[in-house]
């Protein structure tokens, strides 16, 4: 794990979560250092999305510890967590059909030290500028994914929580998302990324956690991941 002088930006300890009586996370502990890109890898149903929902404060029933920027956030409601700098990019991209593209971008309040001005967003995502007065869901899947990413960058979020941003997108768009994540990292923003595409994960991330049946079964540095890519692909059944 890369040296961080100020401790991890996010530290999750003994996190368990339930839907009704069904337990889907079991004592999960992970850490994310300032400026890192860390992925959560695992089969469908492993509990990855649920983990992000817990971090965001959207999960109904869960227990355990979540420290963000050194303070315990378990008792904070979702909007307070967002304003501390958690930028949520949900698995369905969370684009509003009743909001225009620009409204989708400007809905969240600023939530970090350097929110991107709209001009920078449009410079980085020219397509969003062209379509800024369209309803959000009139965009293509790839454009909606860009919109969801652009939105949390505009917030100035310190830690992006991205749930399978590359799912179902063409290699070209996946490449663009990779570029954006690397740029985000260069500016010092941290990313926790859910990714089924192990190959893609290895091109952007510093470290990886492998999740299976609600447990962290392995924690790998990126070089270890690259060596074992084929084994892991088999394991994931992808």
């Amino acid at each position, binding site marked *: 794990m890369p040296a961080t002088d100020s401790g991890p930006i996010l530290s999750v300890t003994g996190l368990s979560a339930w839907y009704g009586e069904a337990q889907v996370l079991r004592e999960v502990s992970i850490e994310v250092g300032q400026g890192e890109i860390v992925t959560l890898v695992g089969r469908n149903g492993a509990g990855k999305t649920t983990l992000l929902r817990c971090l965001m404060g*959207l999960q109904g029933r869960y227990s355990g510890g979540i420290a963000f920027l050194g303070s315990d956030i378990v008792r904070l409601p979702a*909007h307070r967590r967002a304003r501390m700098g958690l930028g*949520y990019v949900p698995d*369905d991209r*969370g684009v509003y059909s*009743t*909001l225009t593209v620009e409204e989708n971008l400007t*809905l*969240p309040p600023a939530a970090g030290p350097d929110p991107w001005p709209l001009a920078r967003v449009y410079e980085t995502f020219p397509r969003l500028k062209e379509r800024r007065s369209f309803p959000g869901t009139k965009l293509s899947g790839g454009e909606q994914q860009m919109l969801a990413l652009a*939105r949390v960058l505009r917030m100035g979020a310190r830690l992006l929580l991205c749930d399978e941003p590359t799912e179902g997108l063409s290699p070209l768009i996946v490449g663009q998302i990779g570029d954006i994540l690397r740029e985000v990292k260069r500016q010092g923003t941290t990313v926790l990324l859910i990714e089924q595409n192990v190959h893609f994960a290895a091109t952007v991330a510093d470290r990886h956690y492998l999740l299976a049946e609600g447990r962290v079964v392995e924690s790998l540095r990126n070089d270890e991941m690259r060596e074992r890519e084929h084994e892991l692909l088999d394991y994931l059944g992808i």
Partner: protein
Amino acid sequence: MLQQAFNGLVGGAFYALLALGLAVIFGMLGVVNFAHGAFYMLGAFGSYVLLDSFGVNFWAALVLVPLLLGLAGTVLERLFIRRLAPLDPLYNFLFTFGLALILQDLVKREYGVQSQPYPRPGLLSGTVDLGLFGYPAYQVFVLAVSVVVCAAVWVVLTRTRVGMIVRAATERPDLTRALGIDVGRWVTPVFGFGIALAGLAGVLAAPMRAVNPLMGADLIITVFAVVVIGGLGSIFGSVAAGFAIGLVSALGNLYVPALSQTLVFILMAAVLLWRPAGLFGREEALS
């Protein structure tokens, strides 16, 4: 026939006001407010009581009653709805349903089931010449108020930041919280506003419809159908469907009077078969 179409639009004016309130409340709170009809009834009774016991005229009631009921709505939301919200949605269904019965029975105990008279305001007692036919001025006024109120709500919803937040929270409440918006803070005023709209519809109804304790219960069933046809959670859909259903049922009444009561529900079934999420609803809103 044109005259009947106009009657339909006036009926639709009530549907639209009530459906608009129901839709914003459902969208933002996830609560199906079964007491909506009771607040409509209270709106009509409120203006009746103000006139009868305090000599407050229609115009003052038009402002005062929605204001008071809206205020009562915010208190209701704070004291009960909010506390029940984290539980199964069934609790708020039962609560608002029970509340409707209680309000109805309280009014019934005080005033009985017979209809109370409410005179048209003097200013609007005449008829307006609409070119092809003369039409009661009061009905024209009702239609105008409803259109203006719905349009004003539309402008606020589409042109202001508050409106943007309400739209976002109506479409995806959880996501909106996760994007840093304190949705809870907007819930109380939105609920109060929805109730105020029901009250306004009630005040408007008093001079042209029978003012009795059951007037809301009779109407609200149709309004639920309107909201479903428009698409649960779609604010625009509920208003559009309100006017459309008013029109369609008035014309239906003219051509197939036997179906006048059931037409709306046949229409609802047809729309749901064709588009399960309603005319303007989003499919994912169902899951």
